[in-house]
C-alpha cells in the first residue's frame, strides 16, 4: 500500500504529523526487518522467512520513497517557518539513519543468502531458535495476521532472481543516500534531539534475561520477591493444616 503524497498540504501541522507518522512507521518496519534478518542462516531459516524478508523490504522501500519525497519537498521549501524547519530536519536525520540501518541489513542479508542458500540445501547453523517469525512480519506489514500464502520450495532460479533483485535494491538505497546528501543540506551539528537521554521502561516484563542472570547473581540474593511470597503462602497453608489436624485429633 504505497502512501501517495501528491497533494500539497495547506495546513502545516498536518504535514508535520504526516512526516512524523511516515518516519515512525519506517522505523518500525526497519526494526522488524532487522529482527527477521537476524534469523537468516539459522535453523529457522526457510522459504517463509525469505518471503517475509522480501515483503518487509518492499514495504520499507515504498515507505522510504514516500518519506524521502515528502521530506525533500518540505526542506527545499524556502518559506518554511523556523520551528517547522527544525522539526523537519530532525525527521530528516532520523530518516537518513533509518535508511543507513536498512542498507546495512540488506547488504548483510544479501551476503548471508549467498552462503546459506535454501535451493542448494546448505547447512544452517543451529542457533537454538525454535519459533517462527510470521508475527513479526505481520507487525511490519501492519496486517492483523499474515495469510500463509503457499511459500513453496525455493528453486535456484527463483533464488537467483531474488538475489539480483536484492542487489538492485541495495544499489538503489545507496543512490538514495547519495542523492539525499546532494539535494538537501542538513547540518547535523545543528540538529538537537528532543527526547530525554534515558527513557522509561516500555513495560515491566523483565522475565527474559532474568532467568539467566539468576545464575550470575545467585550469590547476591537467594530468592526474589515472588518466590518469597509463594513460600510464605505455602507456610501459611501448612500451618493451617497442622492446626486443623490438631483440633480434629483433640476434639475426636
Amino acid at each position: 500500500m504505497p502512501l501517495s503524497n501528491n497533494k500539497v498540504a495547506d495546513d502545516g501541522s498536518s504535514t508535520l504529523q504526516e512526516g512524523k507518522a511516515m518516519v515512525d512507521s519506517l522505523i518500525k518496519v526497519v526494526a522488524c526487518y532487522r529482527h527477521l534478518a537476524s534469523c537468516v542462516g539459522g535453523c529457522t531459516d526457510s522459504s517463509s522467512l525469505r518471503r517475509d524478508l522480501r515483503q518487509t523490504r518492499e514495504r520499507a522501500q515504498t515507505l522510504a520513497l514516500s518519506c524521502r519525497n515528502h521530506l525533500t519537498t518540505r526542506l527545499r521549501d524556502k518559506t518554511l517557518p523556523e520551528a517547522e524547519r527544525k522539526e523537519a530536519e530532525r525527521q530528516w536525520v532520523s530518516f537518513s539513519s533509518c535508511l543507513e540501518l536498512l542498507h546495512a541489513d540488506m547488504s548483510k542479508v544479501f551476503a548471508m543468502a549467498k552462503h546459506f542458500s535454501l535451493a542448494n540445501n546448505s547447512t544452517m547453523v543451529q542457533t537454538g531458535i525454535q519459533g517462527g517469525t510470521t508475527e513479526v512480519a505481520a507487525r511490519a506489514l501492519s496486517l492483523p495476521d499474515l495469510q500463509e500464502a503457499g511459500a513453496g520450495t525455493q528453486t535456484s532460479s527463483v533464488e537467483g532472481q531474488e538475489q539480483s533483485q536484492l542487489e538492485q535494491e541495495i544499489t538503489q538505497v545507496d543512490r538514495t543516500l547519495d542523492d539525499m546528501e546532494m539535494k538537501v543540506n542538513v547540518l547535523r551539528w545543528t540538529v538537537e534531539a528532543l527526547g530525554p537521554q534515558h527513557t522509561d521502561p516500555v513495560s515491566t516484563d523483565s522475565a527474559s534475561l532474568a532467568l539467566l542472570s539468576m545464575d550470575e547473581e545467585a550469590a547476591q540474593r537467594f530468592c526474589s520477591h515472588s518466590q518469597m511470597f509463594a513460600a510464605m503462602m505455602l507456610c501459611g497453608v501448612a500451618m493451617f493444616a497442622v492446626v486443623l489436624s490438631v483440633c480434629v485429633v483433640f476434639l475426636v
Partner: protein
Amino acid sequence: MTINTLSQDGVQRQQMPCLTKMERMIISMQDPDMGIKLRNQRLLITVIPHAMTGADIVEWLIKKFTISDEEAAHIGQFLVKYGYIYPLKEPRNLILKADESAYRFQTPYYWMSTRWPASELDYAIYLAKKNIRKQGELIEYEKECYNALHKRINHTWDFVVMQAREQLRASKQRRKADRIVLECQEQAFWLVNRPPPGTLDIINYGPERRTMNTRVQLNAEFYKKEIEHNRMSLARNRVKSSICLESYVKYCEQYQPHDPIMQGCLPSNPWITDDVLFWNMNSEAVAVPTKLRVERWSFSFTELLDDPMGRKEFLIYLEKEFSAENLCFWQACEDVRHGESSKIPEKVDEVYKQFLAPGASRWVNIDSKTMEKTLEGLKRPHRFVLDDAQMHIYFLMKKDSFPRYLKSELYKSLLARAIVPQETKKSVFPFMRRQRHSSPSPALVTQTAEDDGKTKNSNSVKGNSGTASRL
C-alpha cells in the same frame, strides 16, 4: 553520518581470511552426522535446544582435524573469542572450558565481519534497549559509553530511542525461549565487538587501510606489471642468515663496551643518579674527550663524521694533507640536503662557485661523468641534486684519507690523551640518592629553585618531589 559501508572510497572491504576459515569450520560443525552432539539447555521451565559442552567442542576438533589436545583447545578459544560460539553460564567470560560448561552457536547475522563492522549507531541502539528493558542494568563502562554516544550522535538520538523501542516491541512477538536466545545472541555480539575496558579487543582495526581493488582486469597490462614485480623481487640482494648473523654478532661485540645499558656508564648514568657529568664530559667542545668516544671513531667512517668533535679533528688532519676541501664539500652538501627548501638554490649556487666551478678556490676532484651529471642537474636545483658528487667524495675520503687518519700521529696522540672517567663514589648514606625513577621535569626543578633561592633546599625538594612522583 552517512557512511556507505558498501563502498569505501569505491573499494569494497574484504572479510579477513581467518574469519572465513572459522565460518567454514562452524558450518562443518552443523553436519547432522559428523557434527557436534547437541543437547538441550534447561532453564527452570523453558527448554532451549542446541547447546553443547566445551568438552564436546574440543573432542570434535580433535577428531575432525586429528590434532592434539592443546591445539584443539587453542582453536576452540579462537572460535569463542571471535564470537562464533558464546558461553551460556558466564557470558562475559569469553573462554572455552573443556568441561561441562555450555555453549551455543551464534547466528550468522551476528558473526564477526570486517566488511560491516559494528557501528556506533547500532551500539547506541543496543544500550538504549538494555536501558529501557530494565533501568540500571547498564554496567559502569556501558553507562560511560552511553553518555559518550549521547553526546556524539546527539542529532539522531530520537531515532535511537525510537528504534530501540520498536525492536523491543518486535521481539515481544516471539515466544519466551526465543526471546532469551535472541538476547543472549545480541549480548554476546556486543561483548565481542565492544569489549569491556581491560579485556582483549579481538578485532583491533587500526588505521583504515586501503585494501586492494578486488576488481582487477586480467589483461596484458596486469601481467606485465606482475612480471616486472617478480623480476625485481628476484633481483633483490639476499644474504644467507649464517653470514649476516656472523656480522651481527661482530657488531654487537664491537659496540657492547659502548652501550650504557649493557656496560654501564662512566662516570654515572644521568638518568639514574641525576648527575649530568656524563653529558658534560661528552659534549661537543670539551678539551679532552673520553677514551670510548675516540675509540668509536675507528669503527667506521660514519661514526667519525657523526661526532662533531671527530669531524673537527678530521678536518685538522685533512688540512695538513691539503685535502680539506673534500670534507668541506661534503658538509656543504649535507647542509643542502637537510636545510631549508627556500635557501636551496642559493646554497647550491654557493657550492658550485666554491667547489665545482673550473678554477674554483677549493676545487674537489670528481670524475668527469659525475661532474657532467651534476652540472646538468644544477640547472634545476633541488635538494638531492648534489647527491652523486657527495657520494663520490664520501667514498674517496673513506677509502683514502680515513685509514691514513687512523694511523696518523694526530689520532694516536688523541687516543693516548683521552681520559677514562672515574666512577662517582656512591654517597655515604646509602638511602639518600638511590632514586631508581626518572627525575621530575627540569622545568619544575628550576621553578622550585627560583622559589626557594637556595641550592640546598632545591636538592631536598628534588628528593621530596622525586619520592612523591614515585608510583
